[in-house]
């Protein structure tokens, strides 16, 4: 029985049950990760543009380099996160004597990344709306001599009202779609590692809760 991508959202258990009957393949998951990476790069391009404007007075001409390097970094870090996340839940499932290859785990993690593409696209749309309203403070060459001024300037950018709203919306949307991914990963891990649903929920739930707490702590720090 063949399941479509819509089953991934509506019947993830059946989708992954069917998936593990097939030969392991990272082709489609890699494409999903690539799409998520591109979306993340677009978002990074939008947000880092603000930082580039902030330091434009220090190193004129560096803005393009900073924006491009950050966007490319966002693209590659999505792939790195894919591998790391698969490694974490693979290691946790090992505690529950899970079976199945790491490649299979990477495959189900890749599929589970699909909701996050939509999440990042939503944050991009929000960013398009809010970024023009962000007041970007500018650093001068003289200010570079004082790290405290740089810190205060960066803090001022992050505390801009429009920037704060953007950050909070991004955090909420990211966590919501991350949990949607977690939902898929639980079912996927159950079949990929041949463990119970409860064990899979623990293996995925622990890092998910940890990640959510991290996001919350970042919001309170800002």
């Amino acid at each position: 029985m063949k399941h479509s991508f819509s089953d991934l959202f509506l019947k993830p258990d059946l989708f992954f049950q069917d998936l593990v009957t097939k030969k392991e393949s990272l082709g489609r998951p890699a494409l999903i990760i690539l799409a998520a990476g591109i979306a993340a790069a677009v978002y990074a391009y939008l947000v880092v543009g603000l930082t580039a404007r902030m330091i434009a007075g220090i190193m004129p001409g560096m803005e393009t380099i900073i924006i491009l390097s950050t966007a490319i970094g966002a693209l590659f870090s999505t792939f790195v996160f894919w591998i790391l996340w698969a490694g974490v839940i693979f290691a946790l499932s090992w505690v529950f004597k899970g079976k199945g290859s790491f490649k299979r785990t990477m495959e189900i993690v890749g599929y589970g990344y699909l909701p996050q593409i939509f999440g990042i696209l939503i944050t991009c749309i929000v960013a398009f709306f809010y970024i023009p309203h962000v007041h970007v403070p500018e650093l001068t060459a003289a200010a570079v001599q004082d790290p405290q001024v740089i810190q205060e300037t960066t803090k001022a950018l992050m505390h801009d009202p429009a920037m704060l709203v953007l950050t909070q919306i991004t955090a909420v949307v990211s966590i919501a779609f991350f949990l949607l991914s977690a939902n898929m990963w639980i079912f996927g891990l159950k079949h990929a590692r041949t463990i119970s649903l409860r064990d899979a929920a623990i293996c995925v739930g622990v890092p998910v809760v940890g990640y959510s707490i991290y996001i919350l702590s970042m919001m309170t720090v800002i």
Partner: protein
Amino acid sequence: MKKILFIPIIALCLFLGTMTIAASAYVTPESIVAAGRVYVSSVTYDPTVFFTDDVGTVIFEVTNGNTDQGVVVNHATLSETNHNIRLTSGTYDYSSNIGPGKTQTFTFSVKADGRDGTYYPTFSLSLRDADNLWYKTMVQIDNTPLVVTILDKPDAFTQGRKKTMNVQVANPRKNDVYSLLLEISGTGITSTPSKIFIGELVANANKTINVAITPDQPTTLEITVYYANGDNIHKVTTELPIVFGTDKKQANPVVSNIQVKSDNGIYHVTGDVTNAGLETANAVMVTTLSPAVPQDPYRTYVVGALKPDDFGSFEVTFFAQNGSSIPIQLSYKDADGNIITSTYDVTLSSLPTSSQKSDLPILPIVVVVIIVGVFAGGWVIYLRRNKK
């Protein structure tokens, strides 16, 4: 030999005799009466009053008052007993006829060698058919120069600032002087203009000149007036020490009512600027200097013109390290466009900043907690049902 000497003696006697006969032949009672109607109708000295060592001219106009008889003049000269007025041109040593009712001019060049005083040169004119005509004139030598007075000057000069001075040139002499030229000079002095042509200045009169000067260093300002007395050029100089100091009348913007707020790391400094001086402060501007980093929306605040006792409010925004002292620069332009700046320090040490407030984003946190709770709760319920 005796014959040779005898001939010239005879000729000389004949010549002298002829001349005597000729001269005496025209002296008649009528010619004496006619000579009595010859008079000096005008005497003009130029200059009218001399400085010592001045040269000039004197013009005598001799008029024949007869209506039907001309007179013949042989010789005209001018002399002064003590040579205080010295004749530098020659005498008139030729005969000429002054027709009835006509006037003849005799011009002499003279030099004033005497000291201050009044002198009486005598004009003499030899008439062929009568005695000489003597005419005594009066001329003065006066060494009183023109007077240059600084009527008004700034209370103090400042380096590079243009200031206007009021200079008066007065003529206390008894005669008019001409071609007055006022010249401003001095090391490091820029004057606008540096030379001013005044022209004629009549006796007992004065003229007032405005001069703008810009000193670059403490120095001595020289105001020189050149003038012509007849054909003689004289000058008079007045010196004015230029010492830099504080202008007591200048505008004096004072900053007060300083209030500092911090909004997400951006400091907002508000306050008032009051002009405590006696002159208008134009284009008053307020900004911050390093280590502050000016930021929008008020990197620089233009208060505008402040008349004496006027005040205006300002606001500047900047980044700075908390606890530091920030210099606020206040600048304005005076009436001549000179920019004057001053700085005031504002300490940011004990200021509470809004960034220090614990404004937790409650709503997003609650939303996240609810989402995570729903997710976790849903799975717990699902697992329990699935277990059963």
